[in-house]
């Protein structure tokens, strides 16, 4: 247990290693809400676009911070730091799970100040709904970190990694309800959007904030829970295998 906590602590201590990334991401978040979405709001009559967009961008922030795990894992593989980690007196499972929980907590800490600003923009209806959605979003962040770990485990080369992540972002983000509601999409986009974790997370957050026209279904909850469980499970298995070629012990 102590070893496991040490791994989490180490990941949390590295929080400020990416301060430029965090800072520019935070400023982009604010500019997107207070300038980009605010201006586009004038073009859309039947929807409070600023609020709608703010919820989407909050999920996007969680997504991009969570996916940062891919860069970190890839960097460690290419720099050979993993060899050092493997010499430490802790089990493989403790190490892998510790890394993933550490990464998720870091994502939450990075996103928290932005979420607070975002709550000022949107307001919220019921504190109970909001807390339950935050629970779901923690699971979502855990799943996204797992996804980042899986991708980072397969590619240590920066060029290929940015290619893979760029492609995923280009389609997954645009084929979700992050930027626009499902009714604005064509039929084939709606179909993909419904099996897109970003859509489910954004819709859940909008429901938690009681934004007009938002709702949550059992499908959304099950989707987010399963998404996280499956990706975390796969991530543990893949990362353990890639570490040394053996299964988690």
């Amino acid at each position, binding site marked *: 247990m102590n070893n496991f906590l040490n791994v989490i602590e180490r990941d949390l201590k590295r929080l400020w290693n990416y301060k430029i990334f965090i800072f520019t991401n935070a400023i982009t978040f604010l500019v997107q809400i207070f300038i980009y979405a605010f*201006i586009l709001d004038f073009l859309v009559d039947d929807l409070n676009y600023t609020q709608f967009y703010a919820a989407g961008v909050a999920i996007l922030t969680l997504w991009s911070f969570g996916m940062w795990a891919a860069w970190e894992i890839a960097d460690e593989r290419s720099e050979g730091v993993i060899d050092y980690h493997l010499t430490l007196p802790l089990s493989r499972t403790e190490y892998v799970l510790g890394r993933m929980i550490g990464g998720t907590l870091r994502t939450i800490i990075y996103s928290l100040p932005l979420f607070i600003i975002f709550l000022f923009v949107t307001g919220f209806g019921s504190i109970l709904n909001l807390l339950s959605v935050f629970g779901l979003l923690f699971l979502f962040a855990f799943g996204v970190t797992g996804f980042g770990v899986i991708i980072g485990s397969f590619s240590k080369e920066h060029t290929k990694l940015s290619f893979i992540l760029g492609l995923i972002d280009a389609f997954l983000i645009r084929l979700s309800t992050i930027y626009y509601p499902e009714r604005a999409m064509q039929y084939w986009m709606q179909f993909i959007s419904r099996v897109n974790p970003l859509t489910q997370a954004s819709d859940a957050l909008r429901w938690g904030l009681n934004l007009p026209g938002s709702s949550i279904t059992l499908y959304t909850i099950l989707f987010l829970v399963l998404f996280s469980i499956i990706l975390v499970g796969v991530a543990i298995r893949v990362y353990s295998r890639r570490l040394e070629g053996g299964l988690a012990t």
Partner: protein
Amino acid sequence: MSMLAIMERDLRNFFKYKYWIVVLLITNLADLLIMAASFSNLVTETSLLLSDYLIFFAPGITVLSLFGASFIMGIEVSQERHSERIHYLLSLPINRFQFIVARAFAGAIRSMIFSIPLLIIAIIMIGFQSFLNLIFVLGALFVLAMGLTSLSIILATAIQNTRRYQLARGFISMWLMFGSTVFYPRDVMAYIPGMGIIADINPLSFGANIVRGLLDPAYASTIRALDIIGLLLFSGLMVYLGLYFYNRYTKTA
């Protein structure tokens, strides 16, 4: 002749970033064909010269792609400093002035190559009024590309610290993207105090307004003297400052 050799080298180097180029191109295409297409179904405001958001956005994304590709030159110059490849480049028997001008030209040509597919898509969507207009569009894009490439070279050579360079690049990118008429009409931006002025001093606005007006007669009135003078002034100034900063930097490298 030596200038041509430098330009050829930079053009060859551009395709070294093939993964990056493909991702940037796919992202821009997704922005246009997925994001703008969906968003156009939401737009209900039609009184502000915005009958179809997709048609409005197509020239904007062409300019945005030009900007993205232009900034690759700055990243390359910055990397040359870190890898100390700049010493090798400066040891070549080429006049320094020619070397710098060739790099700016090569950067602009690279950006044009990158943005042409998006321009073709915009033309397919909007059509074009005459070949003369099309030549003016290409000319405007080239002038803008020269200015943006020079701006990226200024940033990479004037700011030596990598973190500060990344930060400055991030801030300038935000101003250029979100403070321009690429995504929304100037009249709508003006609803927010100060944003109209920000749009009026933004080179991407100059480019987007000119390309939009030249391609689509509905937007012909969006081209103002300010856009043409602004674009020429911006690019002229950036090329001059780019030469100054790059020259100063190569002397201290």
